[in-house]
């Protein structure tokens, strides 16, 4: 390709690049600028450059950052892992032929379509100590002797919020995997059946390898989204009890919108972005590779 031909496409890309610069690059650069400043929204006369001071404070002196980072890791691994498993099982079921399959396929996306705030409120009341349906069912089934304060106990709060997020997010995996399943030729299974393969062997040696690309892409995307999400936690526990469900995005949010410390909150966000860049880079590399293939 000559230099002239190589540059021909630039005018076509320019509008998209301009929009990206305005809505992505500018806010990102502003976040970097803010992170290097003492910037408190209600103290506009005292904005000053502090260099890497915010980062040093976070990494060396802020115990809550490390607690939030630990919670975030548990949050991402557990939520995405369980969403994937539930999504895979549901997709395999919905790929079978049964009466009402179309309706079931449509209904399964309902949690994904609901706003996160609604999901947070709904699950908060389902977990409620006195009025919640979970305690009522477990009491009636004789599995517990007394109602459990699911969201107020450190031993159950994070798990309870993760479960709500699993319910919200598994349809994404279901839809992605179901689409992937449609692309596997039936002849593969017929041949395997003739060779005497069990259902588990078909799953292990045909289905999962064929879905590898879809699963990897879905996992990477979902990890980025879940790592960034805070709405369900904010509604259900606000990070409590204590710091039990306090994750990094929630910490940055509270620093910005409760403490109004936008400089510190930007530094927290940037650190989180750096951690996520590992996942993002993997995703981008995969997408680029498949585009070139």
């Amino acid at each position, binding site marked *: 390709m000559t230099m002239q031909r190589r540059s021909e496409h630039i005018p076509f890309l320019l509008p998209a690049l301009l929009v990206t610069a305005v809505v992505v690059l500018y806010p990102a650069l502003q976040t970097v600028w803010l992170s290097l400043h003492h910037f408190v*929204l*209600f*103290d*506009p*006369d005292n904005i000053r450059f502090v260099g890497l001071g915010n980062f040093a404070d976070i990494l060396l002196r802020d115990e809550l950052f490390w607690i939030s980072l630990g919670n975030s890791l548990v949050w991402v691994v557990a939520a995405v892992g369980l969403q994937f498993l539930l999504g895979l099982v549901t997709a395999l079921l919905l790929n079978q032929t049964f009466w009402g399959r179309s309706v079931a396929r449509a209904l399964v996306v309902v949690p994904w379509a609901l706003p996160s705030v609604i999901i947070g409120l709904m699950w908060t009341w389902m977990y*409620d*100590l*006195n*009025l919640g349906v979970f305690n009522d069912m477990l009491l009636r089934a004789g599995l517990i002797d007394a*109602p*459990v*304060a699911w*969201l*107020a*106990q*450190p031993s159950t*709060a994070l798990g309870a919020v993760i479960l709500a997020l699993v319910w919200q997010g598994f349809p994404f995996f279901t839809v992605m995997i179901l689409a992937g399943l449609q692309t596997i030729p039936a002849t593969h299974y017929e041949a395997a059946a003739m060779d005497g393969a069990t259902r588990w062997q078909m799953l292990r040696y045909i289905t999962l390898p064929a879905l590898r690309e879809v699963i990897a892409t879905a996992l990477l995307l979902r990890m980025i989204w879940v790592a960034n999400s805070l709405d369900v936690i904010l509604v259900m*526990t*606000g*990070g*409590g*009890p*204590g*710091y039990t469900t306090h994750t990094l995005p929630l910490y940055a949010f*509270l620093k*910005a*919108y*409760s*403490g*109004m410390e936008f400089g510190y909150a930007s530094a927290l966000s940037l650190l989180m972005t750096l951690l996520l860049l590992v996942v993002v880079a993997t995703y981008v590399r995969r997408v680029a590779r498949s585009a070139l293939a």
Partner: protein
Amino acid sequence: MKRRTLMTYSAAAIAAPMIGRVQAQAPTTVRWWYHFDNPQASPAELVAKFEKENPGVKVQAESIPWGGGNDYYTRLYAALVAGNGPDCAMVKLGNQSRLLQMKALEPLDGMIDKWSGKSDIAPNLWKMHQANDGKAYYLPLQYVVLYLYYRTDLFQAAGVQPPRTFDDFLKAALAVNKGDVAAFGMRGGGGGHDHWGSFVLGGGATFDSGGMVTPKALAANRWFVELGTRHKLFPASAPTDGFRQIVDNFKAGRTAMTIHHIGSANEMVQALGDKVSAVPVPMGPDGKGWTSFGDESNAVFAASKAKEAAFRWASFLSSADNNVAFNAFTGQLTVSTSGAAKWNLHPKRFVDATAASTGLMGTLPNDTKTADFTRTVWPQQMQRALLGQITPDAMMQAIEKHFHG
């Protein structure tokens, strides 16, 4: 009269109605931000009444999501910093200090002195709204005083009277704390500092430097935390319970007492009838008490180009009948003395409990750190103390550190 003077007067006489018409065509617009708990409530009728009485002024009332205070104030601060703030807005005392630091507030003393409704607002209300520099930046709009709700049926069954002191409270609480009923619906989530304040600030803690870590303050906090950890008088969900939970648990008979204000009285009575009543929060060992004064005012912003018109609208809302009408849909109390005389929006026993509580009412410090204290620091530290993750003393040290380093 000289010819030139005559011409000038004539021109002025001709131009005067035209100027009037120009003004009539371009009325001053006042942008006002407000938040109501009930999204169905609308100030449209009051706006129409005001505009009829003030033909040159239009009010653009903008409902801003409250979001526990975070949403509202973040938007307000951001709008003010960006130079796109409203002319006036509903504001609370807890944010006055931050707004002053931003130099966002217009002093209203001059306009208030000329306002005919000034004397209809009680002197102690004016005093409570005064800023640290002695000036008035807020025009009171509504208020509540927190008191103790109690279930008359559960108290009668246990043979106890509503408490007047901390000792009474503990005795009564231990008596009603049976089976599924927890004695006190404690609010450990956002906004719960009001519950804590009644017992810990009422027990001797203060926000002055060192005031959270005096022996008396530490003892008061230990006593309060132990109501939950040792005596088990709070529901297990207390660490994260918010407004909805404490009200619903009380209505469902899961708790026998809780602390809130008259804003929830009608809902309580609708569910419980005569089985609910209220008294002032109990007094501490030294005969003093503390209860939260919940305020809401209007402020006019320094950057406004329509300050006089904005004040006219704000003062309209704080005037007798208009203020009663305003509070009819916020469920709180009128700041107007003449309006209070004909108040009939709540059952009398709750109005009486409010009146009896005014001697105890206090406010959180007018400090830039107060808002973060109520929204983040207090809930986190309180929850950790209730769960045994930190000691009650460590909780008080964290609060002391937040305010005084």
